[in-house]
């Protein structure tokens, strides 16, 4: 890693922040949130959930209707974007088309009134950092999508911002490049110790890069947690289904133990790993990959009929109907095929099923 570019990473804190457009269009409703310094936090949710508005409020591109925003302990609520020490990588990259790569990267440095030598030094180490040496004089239109994205990243990190924001940075890249670039972003973040807030609607991307994920739904925060937390212990049907897909089934809770609960559906009785408050109605969330199918009948398992099966290369996708409703299951292609219309017995593998309040 380069010696020139350092970090001024700071934490971000939201206190009761709301953003209301017009009279009653609530984009973000009364959220509290803390992003610790030096971590990568993802805002995840379906479109229209308020994640981009939240990001833009950190940047200062939108001002909150109510509440306060702190960066590094300082109240920045009323400061416009220009006066905040925050940098952002835009979805469209927003590279200035009439400026060369070098000029684009130097732009923010010039605005902060730096000396010419320092600008040159930082610009060149920024380009080193993202592997763009030799492209200094190119115009953005003469670069590939991936290269343009690197310019956008370099332009932001040379400012050594307190917080670096990414607004769906991978959405304009092809599938193969996405994996590579997201790993690079993560490497850069951990290497420099940056505070990063990252917006995406792709749960796989969020699970792969984040220290913490903030799941948002309908202008509210649905759940905050580490990727493992969210996957194993979702606190709602929405989170369970949004993170990694889930079949939501009705069930009888037989007992709530210290760390395990006992659950029954029809005549199938089994244990799940998480515990929910006693006074809440609960439903069962089962991951499609955690369902085992067998052609042999089993009186202690669920039974159902294969309604539909599709072959997608590495695995089979089944839709199974039974008294419990409909289940979507995924099985490795190495296992024997259960043909459409055949009877199957269904069991749930140990990890990956959990109770959620309904």
């Amino acid at each position, binding site marked *: 890693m380069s010696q020139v570019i350092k970090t001024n990473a700071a934490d971000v804190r939201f206190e009761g922040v709301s953003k209301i457009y017009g009279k009653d269009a609530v984009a973000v409703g009364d959220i509290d949130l803390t992003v610790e310094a030096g971590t990568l936090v993802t805002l995840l949710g379906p479109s229209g959930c308020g994640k981009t508005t939240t990001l833009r409020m950190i940047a200062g591109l939108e*001002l909150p209707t109510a509440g306060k925003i702190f960066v590094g302990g300082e109240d920045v609520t*009323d400061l416009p974007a*220009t006066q905040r*020490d925050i940098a*952002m990588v835009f979805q469209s990259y927003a590279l200035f088309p009439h400026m060369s790569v070098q000029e684009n990267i130097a732009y923010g440095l010039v605005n902060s009134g730096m000396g010419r030598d320092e600008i040159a030094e930082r610009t060149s180490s920024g380009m080193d950092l993202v592997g763009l040496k030799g492209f200094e004089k190119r115009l953005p239109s003469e670069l590939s999508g991936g290269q343009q994205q690197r310019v956008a990243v370099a*332009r*932001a990190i040379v400012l050594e911002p307190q917080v670096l924001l990414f607004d769906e940075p991978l959405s304009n890249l092809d599938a193969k490049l996405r994996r590579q670039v997201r790993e690079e972003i993560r490497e850069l973040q951990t290497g420099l110790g940056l505070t990063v807030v990252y917006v995406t609607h792709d749960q796989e991307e969020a699970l792969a890069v984040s220290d913490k994920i903030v799941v948002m739904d309908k202008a509210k925060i649905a759940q905050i947690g580490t990727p493992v937390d969210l996957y194993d212990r979702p606190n709602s049907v929405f989170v369970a289904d949004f993170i990694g897909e889930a079949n939501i089934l009705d069930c009888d809770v037989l007992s709530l133990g210290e760390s395990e609960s006992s659950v029954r559906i029809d005549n199938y009785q089994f244990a799940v790993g998480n515990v929910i408050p006693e006074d809440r109605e609960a439903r069962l969330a089962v991951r499609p990959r955690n369902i085992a199918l067998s052609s042999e009948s089993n009186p202690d398992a669920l039974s159902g009929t294969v309604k539909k099966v599709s072959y997608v290369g590495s695995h089979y996708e089944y839709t199974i109907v039974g008294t419990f409703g409909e289940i979507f299951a995924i099985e490795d292609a190495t296992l024997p095929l259960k043909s459409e219309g055949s009877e199957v017995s269904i069991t749930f593998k140990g990890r990956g099923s959990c109770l959620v309040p309904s």
Partner: protein
Amino acid sequence: MKRDLQKAGIDSNLRLWLFVGVAGYLLLPWYGLEDFWTLGWVISFPLFSSDNPSGLFLISQGDSLWILPSLLTFLLSGFALRLPRANPSYSRLLMITGLSTVILVVTQGLSIGIRGWTTDWLGELFGPLNARQYGMGYGGLIFTVSALMIFCHGLASRPRKGADLFVTGAIGLVTAVVSVFVFFPIFIMLMSAFRTEDGGGSLLLFFQRLVEQKLWQVDCLVGAGPCGVAINSFLLAVSVGVITTVLGLCFALIIVRTGFRFNKILRALSVVPIITPPFVIGLAIILLFGLSGTVTTTVAEWLGLNPTRWVYGFTGVLIAQTLAFTPIAFLVLIGVVESVSPSLEEAAQTLRADRWTSFKTVTLPLIRPGLANAFLLGFIESMADFGNPLVLGGNLDVLSTEIFFAIVGAQYDQSGAAILATILLGFTLLAFYFQRFWLGKKSYVTVTGKGDSGIPTQLPKRVAIPAISIVSLWTVFTFVVYGMILYGSVVELWGVNNTLTFKHYITAFGLDWKDGIVWSGAAWDSFWTTMMISVTAAPFTAAVGLLTAYLLTRQKFFGQNAFEFGTMLSFAIPGTVIGVSYILAFNVPPIEITGTGLILVISFIFRNMPVGVRAGIASMTQIDKSLDESSATLGASTWATLRHVIMPLLKSATVAALVYSFVRAMTAISAVIFLVSAEYDMATSYIIGRVENNDYGLAIAYSTTLIVVMLLAILLLQFLVGRTKIGRRHAELESI
């Protein structure tokens, strides 16, 4: 560190305006002077003299004490420097003091004129006033602008609004100048329409004169004599609007949708009439169809009849205006036709529509807003056109010429002119209103920013064949017309003596050599005046227009719709109306600029500003908003973003606005004819003067020279400003 700097910047802005305002009050002459705009007074800079007194000097002498309160409110705003910026009183104090200063200056300026009180009731209220005051000078101007900026500063500092200092200031400034130079004169003109001869006001008389039969009779429709002036103008404008729209559409369709082999010529040809002063076409029509015109005499000889003045009147004006304004319709429509996404018609064809059906059901409805726009433009241009009816009108009276004769004629009937101008304005505003609220609400935007791989569909035959025939005819006719102009400028005396000669050019643009160049030609004076005024007006027009476009597309603020409407309104105001309203409003204090070059410059700026606004809006919507945002997150102020990101990407819009305002200033006549003075005569009004003396040769030679000069200027401008370099994409576009 970055943040502290910005905070300091905010207060230094306030200090700056306080300083500028006080300096204006202390040092610069409060009132305008004879040689005011030539800056002659600077040489004998009299800080404290009775010749060019500053505001403070006036007060110290006990003169013009009515300007004292404004100074006091202005100074009050200085107390804001002692308040913290987050304190709500900070912004409140600045808003109140700034606004009251502006109101005080404006009120005293409007109530006290050259002869004391401007209205009787003020005299009755305060007693007679022996003092008088003249038009506002640099001191008053700078002081008022500073007060306005302090008000805007207050607006921008309201807590929790996130307003930007630069943006608020710009909005305040644009609103102020548009109010002063568009709304104020129109208001004054409306007022004087109510004025009776003895100086009183009468609503009854106004309505009587408004509905006079002379204006509204429709006898010509039933063949029972002449129609009223208003009816003539209306019929002419509707006909011109319809014909130019149809012709413009034919042009646009042929160029975009057919492989017609003369497409390049058509495009080039369509530009020529734009750089032609509109009445020049009228002159060419006279050369062709007038009493001694080539066609008239030939046909008369052939049929054995006496040549007549048949072309003078409705027919002639219609032909001339159609030729002159078709290119405007074309320029509107080609943009619209090109923007219809080709894949839409392709989609229609895959849905079992043949070429004609898909054209009729998809393309035509999509370009309807364009058609309405083109019609509106033709309608307004025809209503406002002054030159062609004057040259070719014969017995046909239209509003624009009648207004002129009411003002310059023997009767000098100010309120009569104002009433006619009100009717003219009423017509164009109605058209504007219909276009805006009837069609404006439906959005037919088909440019999505997504790649479109469709290929423009060929025009169906039943459209292509008539279109090509009409356009070919038009083209041939245009060639003949311009041939006539060129030829007419080099013959001795048209129709009488056809010997070739350069004498008209020599009379107009002769040069002698007597200890240096002597500009002996008769046209040089007006030529250089025109150049100077057009060159001065162009950058201001472009700047105001593009700034307004920036505010409209990039910022959100309270009253934005009203702001947009106000700035686009001057588009619907015919030049004739502007001319009348300017002389009515600006020949008395507080703004006394009639007879100067400045009034011409200002009239051009506000008349042509809407085109700058439109060009700016069109290209700014192409620039993604994330560019502004990323510039802001990279620490650039709004002004820096505008300067380093937006402006460089707007080069072509800038060129368009510059070229357009330059050309319009060179060719304009309708407003100019009212505003020229002996000292500041413009080329067009000089030429019209020659035409009225039947000196066609000189008039045509001068016009030809103007056309060539404008062509050269356009090429030069394009070369100087250049194109924005954004790499590969541009090259690809060109190779298509």
